[in-house]
């Protein structure tokens, strides 16, 4: 049984297709993050799961029950919004129990739930206050509390941390993570912040133009991006993508960058389908953090590159190198002294390489 299943879901606003044939499944207790640039359809997808938007095609199942035409209140979900959406005229207590009251829950049960949740979230001293008298973090907590008291099957979060300042955001992120660890609830969480996605999700679905690009664990998303969009979207700075050709003789495969004659051996790479390498034009992907200043592994490729630019950001520095007229970024500890406009000896970790077909931009 899947807690949430989305089947061939399509949605359009007028002639604009927002979601195209989305398929998605979540197991009980998972934390799924929908990640993507603005306008990719992630919030629409969340609203559809909540029942706040209608569907053009496809179905949504919660616990194997088709809820596509079921009212939001009957879907056994709860939602936390970016603007918190606390009812301004009600105090914290009334805000939190509004849903239970609508569901005609007994008074004892309401009191019990309120007590449990408010002490769990440490808002029991705020119960009589109006939302306007709360700080951003407190509002966020009350909004989560309002979702918790209903004990839903699925929690939906719509960019809940975007309105907080940077420091509070990190704090609340940890609290949401703790909350999930303690309660083991099923969560669907929408964000455009990759750090949030990486740190919170047990699964991340990366979306672009209404299509899910990759739905995988954070580790796989980071290490084995399924296409150049994911490779580029995740990581800061994003993955270096070097254009070039694959050369295949007998069992050895090597990569030659455009305008260079250096053969880079591809040894540890896990090809999807090695025998069908039809297109030799590829992108060679390597993350900035996998280019070292010192040799770390036996197989690291030694390479001489000219440093063009150095950006100091405190705990680290990002240096731009020139590799046969293509820019390559590398990330070093800021303690290392890199001389500009000079050839520098670098080591590329060949176990961390990703290769993409240059035509369809898919991982090969």
């Amino acid at each position, binding site marked *: 049984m899947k807690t949430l299943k989305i089947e061939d879901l399509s949605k359009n606003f007028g002639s604009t297709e927002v979601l195209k044939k989305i398929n998605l499944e979540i197991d009980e207790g998972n934390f799924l993050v929908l990640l993507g640039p603005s306008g990719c359809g992630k919030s629409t997808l969340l609203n559809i799961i909540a029942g706040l938007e209608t569907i053009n095609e496809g179905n949504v199942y919660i616990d194997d029950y088709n809820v596509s035409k079921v009212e939001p209140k009957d879907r056994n979900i709860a939602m936390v919004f970016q603007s918190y959406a606390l009812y301004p005229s009600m105090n914290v207590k009334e805000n939190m129990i509004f*849903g239970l009251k609508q569901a005609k829950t007994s008074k004892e049960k309401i009191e019990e739930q309120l007590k449990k949740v408010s002490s769990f979230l440490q808002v029991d001293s705020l119960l009589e206050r109006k939302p306007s008298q709360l700080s951003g973090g407190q509002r966020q907590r009350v909004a989560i509390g309002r979702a918790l008291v209903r004990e839903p099957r699925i929690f939906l979060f719509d960019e809940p941390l975007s309105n907080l300042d940077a420091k509070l955001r990190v704090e609340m992120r940890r609290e949401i993570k703790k909350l999930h660890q303690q309660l083991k609830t099923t969560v669907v969480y929408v964000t455009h912040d990759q750090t949030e996605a990486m740190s919170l999700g047990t699964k991340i679905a990366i979306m672009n133009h209404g299509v899910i690009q990759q739905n995988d664990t954070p580790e796989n998303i980071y290490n084995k991006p399924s296409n150049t969009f994911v490779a580029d979207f995740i990581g800061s700075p994003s993955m270096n993508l070097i254009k070039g050709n694959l050369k295949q003789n007998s069992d050895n495969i090597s990569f030659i960058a455009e305008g260079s004659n250096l053969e880079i051996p591809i040894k540890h790479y896990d090809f999807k389908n090695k025998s069908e390498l039809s297109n030799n034009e590829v992108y060679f992907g390597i993350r900035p953090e996998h280019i070292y200043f010192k040799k770390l592994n036996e197989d690291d490729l030694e390479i001489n590159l000219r440093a063009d630019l150095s950006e100091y950001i405190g705990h680290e520095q990002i240096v731009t190198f020139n590799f046969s007229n293509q820019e390559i970024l590398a990330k070093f500890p800021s303690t290392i002294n890199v001389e500009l406009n000079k050839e520098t000896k670098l080591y590329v970790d060949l176990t961390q390489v990703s290769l993409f077909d240059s035509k369809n931009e898919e991982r090969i």
Partner: protein
Amino acid sequence: MQGSLQSSSYKKLEQKSKYTNIFLRWFLYFVLILFASYFIFPLYVMIVTSLKTMEEIRQGTLLTWPSALNFESWGVAWGGRGYGAGDTYLKPYFWNSIKMVVPAVFFSTFIGAMAGYVLTKWRFKGDKWVFLFLLFGCFIPYQAILLPMARTLGVLGISNSVIGLVLVHTVYGIPFTTLFFRNFYVSIPSELVKAARIDGAGFFKIFFKILLPISTPIIVVTVIWQFTQIWNDFLFGSTFSFGEAAPIQVALNNMVLSSTSVKEYNVDMASAIIAGIPTLIVYVLAGKYFIRGLTSGAVKG
């Protein structure tokens, strides 16, 4: 040497700007007082005249303070002289106006709030057109609809009645009230409605429990606007009612323009003030919300 030179020239500049400021300040006060007295002057004349006796008025001393405060004309304006035929006084028409204005303000405000709620939070296909046509209602000259409206009231059997006037004022208030509420609700995040829907609240519950309690500023604006419009209306009142069903503005007109007897300026002035007092009271009581409410919808981002 150079330093002291500079500081003395700064002192001169300082002095100069001080004088300029003082001059500008006094000029500003002068202009403000001038305009304030310009606006307050007619009111002064009205009050003073209403407190004079006719003999005093005939002497032609328009601006002087009355020799003795004489409230007789106020009594006549409100309650008449007590003899039968031809005696027009405001009291019954004042209550006519109250009976007209209270339900008309209530219904037009309520319907406007509902319409604004639907147009912003329950969008439907073609809602923009509905709003556009409603807006046209704000710009239709009332003279253009007098005949069709008279016919409608006749068909409904409520012509020359307070109920008929309530209907007319409600209908022609709706474009304005809808515009006010729509612009206010547009600035309220729709996530509130979404949250309430997930919590299980329906269409009316969301309106009454969530949106209406935070609508005080715009309700005040709408009530003041509608009250003033309806209370001060003369056109609809004089067209759709006559005799005993007339609202106060029509009665005031009849009183002042009646050519049967001598012009009693003191009674006329007292009547005019009485007819204007209710709107003044509404402004004084809710005026500070008026400005706040007018801007809150527009500025709040």
